[in-house]
């Protein structure tokens, strides 16, 4: 799941949790899923280390990235 998809899922969860007719048990499950997704997203933000590379086509269709 991409970061964006994770955030979209979080939006869905927030909307579902806001509904009046969601059973409490379901609300708890949604909340737990939401917290797990948040943790996932935060850790991705924390660990990603941006690189600057140059694309090199070493031979027809053979791609590599270099400093």
């Amino acid at each position: 799941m991409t970061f964006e998809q994770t955030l979209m899922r979080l939006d869905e969860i927030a909307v579902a949790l806001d509904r009046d007719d969601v059973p409490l048990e379901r609300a708890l499950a949604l909340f737990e899923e939401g917290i797990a997704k948040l943790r996932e997203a935060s850790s991705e933000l924390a660990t990603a280390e941006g690189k600057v590379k140059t694309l090199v086509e070493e031979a027809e269709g053979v791609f590599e990235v270099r400093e």
Partner: protein
Amino acid sequence: MLAPGESPDSAISVLELNEAAKAIIEGAIQRLWVKGEISNFTKHRNGHWYFSLKDASAQLPCVIWSRDVRRLPTAPTEGMTVMARGQLTVYPAQGKMQFMIDALEAEGEGLWKKAFDETKARLTKDGLTDPSRKRRLPRFPRTVAVITSPDGAALRDIIAVVRRRHPGVSVVVIPAAVQGETAPDSLVWALDRLSRWVAGSVSDSPMVSEAARALVPDLLIIGRGGGSREDLWAFNDERVARAIAACPIPTISAVGHETDVTIADLVADLRAATPSVAAESAVPVLVEVQQMLRNVAGMLTDALEDQVAHGARELRQRADGLAMRAGRVVERRRARVQQLAGRIEALSPVAVLARGFSVARGADGGTLGRRAAFTIGDTFDLLLHDGRVRARTESVHDDAPHLRETP
């Protein structure tokens, strides 16, 4: 001995004369700019352009060789006023004066504007400038591809902005020439490489290294810093525009200064005024993303608390409802009991007596309900609803009149 051409005997050839005229004209008149109107314009199939420059009372045959044609944005139109730079010469084979043009400019924005409008019209006809084609940019790209000159200010600016906003985002440069005659081909080739790299990564081709696959980009910034109209011209090239339109990932064009709109801007998914602005549009600010995540966490917690409170409220309501219903059941039972009690009372002998009947009871307390229970001379009690009467049997008859009920 006479000088060449001084007498019939020393007559020179036509070619010799034309060559002499050519040398004299080229030597006497240096390369210069001439202004006139385009007339009788024709494109030869070998790529050269032939036409005349004319004004009210004179005209001049002109040629632009194909190698110079390539540098022009488009062909001039008939009657267009142009400034042409060239060398006046003589074409010896025809003895004809000819102006060899190597640079051509129309008055005002003329030729460039015409080329721009023509290219735009062709792209529009194919739907490539349609706003509905524009793709949404990913909000959180992990890698941004940049097609630009590897040593231009544009690349430095983009990297600096990305670093500052979000150090977790990677930049992959696909180098290309961004000005000069080779720029359009170079840009098209860079876009082609990008497309094949993305396609190879998506299809898990073993030709794409693991590192290259890990950095497959989410969007493209293509552009360069500001420059003259000629410097920016590659971004008005139709093939470049078509390659941008065909790019498999969303594109941001970032060409030059804020005021220069290029053909590339028209087909890109987003037009940024400068490369720095492109980087700002492409990459979110990390601390803002982190804040957003915290907000989402707060929202989830609040929503759950609301749900729990709501659940508790529901529970209480149900309990109250239950108690109320139980109360109503008891009430109904009580009413029913009272009703039954009423009926039972109605059936009791006391109630019958209240209606005017009486019961005879013997000395032993037994009810005297039949004629045979009475013995003449015996006493018995007559029970009434409000008391008792001691009575004696005088006589017993079997012909008693029917009792008439009295209310």
